[in-house]
């Protein structure tokens, strides 16, 4: 391992600009003659728009224009789309209602946009927004997902009778029913996965800019996938053809899924810029707008039954889930409670029969889509709460029950599509148990009891599918896009290198890890390597960063391009040194003739490629290669998490005494960055378990958690220092043997926390977030 190569703990190249205040986020950009946009948003969860009077607002100081949904429809700007088609079990396609960028007939959730005010300053736009008069006919709203399909419930979209978007299934129902019928014991659970708001610290922002002379649009946007944004805004929304629309994602301040999606606000910023004659239009969310418009995550209610034989081996798992997709179907929302959820219900266990039925429903709430983990946290929470509860009820140690059911040989085909390629679940189980001194728990519990505290320990054994994914496979399951990645390696005549990638960092440190890969291959110092991303004018196409795919898929594309660069460089070196191409090796930035002292530094080979004075006959000048990489399978990271808590029975407050995370991510490029990803994921998972929950008034549909005064974000003193470690089975599916690490922490941690709390206080279940009030009530029998 070189000091800057694969496996090295290199500090990040991108950090200097961030620690000195020189980061460049969308809201930091000020274009000439730029205007400011403020949206008028619905105060009602569900209402007909009877009329909109913008005359007073238009006359207000500084106002450039006020636009409504009627203007948008008049310009034939299309609605936003959901890009993954799901079919119900009866074969019918999902029932999606329209999603206009500005509502014009009805509003469907509090915060739905009804008009946009464009003014010289943001304060002027805010003031004028207050003057827009909207007359509503308020309709009854449906907020609670459990009642959404009930007869007589308010209807969110006419296209979806009974608010049912799809009624989907996976797995063998007959086999699962038969397995459960023959089971020695059945454990039944009703599990709620609480609704969350992703909350990247940088609020969403967009600047639309139209060049009248060129008939060309530019969008600066807080997006995780600028090319997908361009594709959707071009091909579906109809803003402009792709070659007339450039999307730039500058520094992006966190995403966690919320910045994957194509939202109304960037659509409107682009369209409005053209409407007002080409002056740029900027919109930046305030935090309350973020709560009202950034897609939420999770929000499942599930009934599940797991059958065991007399030896406590699992014989079958039957799951029924209702998933709340909110008021509109967001970009990838349909895939989350289906193919990203139910395909992971086998977990780390050998389960012969699984059947899952998922009903997705509309409600008058903010749309729900992927949030860190996306479906996999919901599957893991269900399965690991089930395993822990089953162990207690079957009278078996939770560790031993899991071990008894572990998958131990690979590849392993589950009953729910996935074929696990590699893993060693016992390895991280043993490591986590040892690191947490699981064997010594009883003594610690006794010590806590002596102080009047209740101590508990809980496990979680997660698996996830990430590095999404083989294009053909996801296409066959309904995805509207391919999920490959692209890369281009441009070697300059002086030997420095630019890597163009379709991945886009929003905190993951690609500028460092991608450079480490190039350093490993070509020996070029990472400071002579520039990663170029986040601009559709520079990078031809790419699918972006989500689903822990930038390493396993994005870096694999770079590997493929490097293979081509290396092959050409070797040809040139062999020619220059009059050696056989097969004898050329690359070591420490030099091309050498194996077994001799002949060598050329890499930069001289690069220079030779560009001077082209002495190249092999017929070779084109230059040293620049591109590649597209489509994975052959998902990757399957796995791990064992152990959480130990102490509960104060007087207050119900939960303190995490230790948290051990043992993960198998395959090969790791930069351990420092990988550990950081796990830390962040754990804090989000602990946040879900203890603190976070989107709350609505179920009568009025008002969002009760609309700021950080009401929605509890994890603070530094809510989480412990983490004990993070790794085991390794190499992923056979990609050239670097990597698995993906971005979501694991958020996937694996919530059940570990709740298993520990229920162990401590001796209750069967407690719903997330396990706030002190809830825990206290559970202890004192008032749940």
């Amino acid at each position: 391992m070189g000091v800057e190569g694969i496996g090295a703990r290199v500090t990040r190249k991108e950090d200097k600009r961030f620690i000195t205040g020189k980061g460049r986020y969308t809201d930091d950009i000020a274009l000439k003659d730029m205007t400011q946009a403020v949206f008028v948003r619905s105060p009602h969860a569900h209402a007909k728009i009877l009329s909109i009077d913008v005359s007073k607002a238009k006359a207000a100081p500084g106002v450039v224009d006020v636009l409504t949904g009627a203007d948008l429809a008049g310009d034939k700007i299309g609605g936003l789309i959901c890009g993954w088609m799901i079919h119900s079990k009866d074969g019918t396609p999902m029932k999606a209602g329209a999603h206009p960028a500005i509502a014009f007939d009805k509003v469907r959730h509090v915060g739905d946009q009804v008009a946009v005010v464009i003014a010289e300053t943001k304060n002027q736009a805010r003031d004028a927004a207050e003057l827009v008069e909207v007359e509503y006919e308020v309709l009854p709203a449906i907020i609670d997902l459990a009642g959404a399909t009930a007869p007589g419930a308010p209807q969110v979209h006419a296209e979806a009778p009974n608010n049912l978007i799809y009624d989907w299934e996976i797995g063998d129902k007959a086999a699962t029913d038969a397995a459960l019928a023959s089971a020695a014991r059945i454990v039944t659970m009703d599990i709620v996965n609480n609704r969350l708001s992703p909350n990247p610290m940088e609020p969403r922002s967009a600047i639309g800019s139209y060049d009248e002379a060129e008939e060309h649009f530019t969008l600066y946007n807080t997006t995780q996938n600028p090319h997908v944004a361009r594709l959707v805004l071009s091909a579906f929304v109809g803003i402009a053809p792709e070659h007339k629309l450039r999307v730039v994602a500058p520094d992006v301040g966190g995403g966690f899924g919320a910045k994957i999606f194509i939202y109304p606000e960037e659509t409107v910023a682009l369209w409005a810029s053209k409407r007002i004659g080409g002056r740029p239009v900027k919109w930046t969310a305030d935090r309350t707008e973020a709560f009202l418009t950034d897609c939420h995550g999770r929000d499942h209610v599930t009934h599940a039954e797991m059958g065991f034989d007399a030896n406590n081996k699992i014989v079958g798992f039957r799951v029924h889930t209702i998933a709340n997709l909110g008021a509109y179907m967001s970009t990838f929302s349909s895939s989350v409670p289906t193919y990203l959820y139910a395909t992971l219900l086998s977990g780390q266990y050998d389960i012969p029969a699984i059947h899952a039925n998922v009903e997705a429903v509309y409600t008058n709430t903010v749309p729900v889509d992927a949030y860190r983990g996306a479906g996999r946290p919901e599957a893991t929470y269900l399965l690991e709460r089930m395993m822990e509860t089953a162990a207690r009820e079957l009278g078996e140690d939770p560790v031993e029950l899991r071990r008894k059911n572990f998958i131990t040989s690979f590849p392993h085909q589950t009953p729910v599509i996935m074929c696990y390629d590699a893993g060693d679940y016992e390895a991280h189980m043993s490591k986590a148990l040892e690191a947490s001194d699981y064997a010594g728990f009883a003594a610690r519990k006794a010590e806590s009891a002596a102080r009047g505290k209740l101590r508990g320990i809980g496990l979680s054994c997660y698996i996830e599918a990430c590095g999404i994914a083989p294009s053909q496979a996801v296409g066959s399951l309904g995805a509207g896009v391919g999920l490959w990645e692209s890369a281009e390696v441009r070697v300059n005549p002086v030997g420095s290198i630019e890597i163009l990638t379709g991945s886009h960092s929003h905190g993951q440190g690609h500028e460092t890890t991608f450079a480490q890969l190039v350093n490993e291959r070509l020996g070029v110092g990472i400071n002579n390597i520039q990663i170029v991303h986040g601009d559709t004018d520079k990078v031809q196409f790419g699918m972006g960063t989500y689903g822990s795919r930038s390493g396993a898929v994005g870096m694999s594309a770079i590997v493929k391009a490097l293979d081509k660069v290396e092959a050409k460089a070797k040809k040139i070196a062999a020619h220059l040194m009059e050696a056989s191409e097969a004898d050329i090796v690359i070591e420490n930035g030099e091309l050498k003739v194996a077994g001799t002292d002949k060598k050329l530094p890499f930069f001289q080979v690069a220079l030779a490629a560009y001077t082209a004075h002495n190249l092999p006959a017929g070779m084109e000048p230059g040293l620049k290669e591109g590649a597209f990489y489509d994975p052959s399978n998902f990757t399957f990271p796995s791990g064992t998490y152990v959480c130990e808590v102490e509960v104060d029975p007087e207050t119900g407050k939960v303190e995490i005494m230790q948290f051990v995370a043992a993960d198998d991510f395959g090969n790791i490029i930069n351990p420092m960055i990988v550990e950081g990803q796990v830390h962040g994921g754990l804090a989000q998972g602990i946040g879900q378990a203890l603190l976070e929950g989107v709350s609505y008034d179920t009568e009025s549909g008002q969002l009760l958690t609309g700021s950080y005064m009401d929605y509890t974000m994890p603070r530094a003193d809510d989480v412990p220092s983490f004990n993070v470690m790794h085991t390794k089975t190499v992923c056979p599916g990609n050239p670097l043997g990597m698995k993906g690490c971005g979501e694991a922490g958020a996937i694996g941690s919530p059940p570990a926390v709740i298993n520990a709390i229920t162990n401590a206080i001796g209750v069967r279940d407690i719903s997330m977030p396990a706030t002190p009030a809830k825990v206290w009530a559970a202890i004192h029998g008032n749940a």
Partner: protein
Amino acid sequence: MASISMTVNGKSVTGTVEDRTLLVNFIRENVGLTGTHVGCDTSQCGACVVHVDGIAVKSCTMLAVQADGRSVTTIEGLASGDQLHPVQAAFREHHGLQCGFCTPGMIMAAVDMINRYGANLDEATIRHELEGNICRCTGYHNIVKAIQAAANEMAGLTQAAE
């Protein structure tokens, strides 16, 4: 509208602002220093922390006119030329940042914390003191390590100077 003048990172700046203009907007829009961020609008997240007369202040919760005649230091003014402040260096060394959005406020709050506590900063104190700064990426683990390392280093530097 009010005419105000203040020192920002050692330079004198003047401007005409609405009475309701927040200090953070003055810094970002009038002075053009965009390292100070707005993350929440309710004085919770701390992405906007700057120093006013040497004390950490949430610049989204102070009017620009209240800073009239005072000395403001932002993240851009913390390093001495190419020489990073020890807290900046520690954040990089210990991977105390990911997306970087909360980082300027975190660093400015940490400098203030170290100014107040010196080397007497244990993990529990750091975590408690960070209640006004929210990070969504790091889980705080490496931020705490970075602040502790910087506090120790700065205490060492102080002792060496004495």
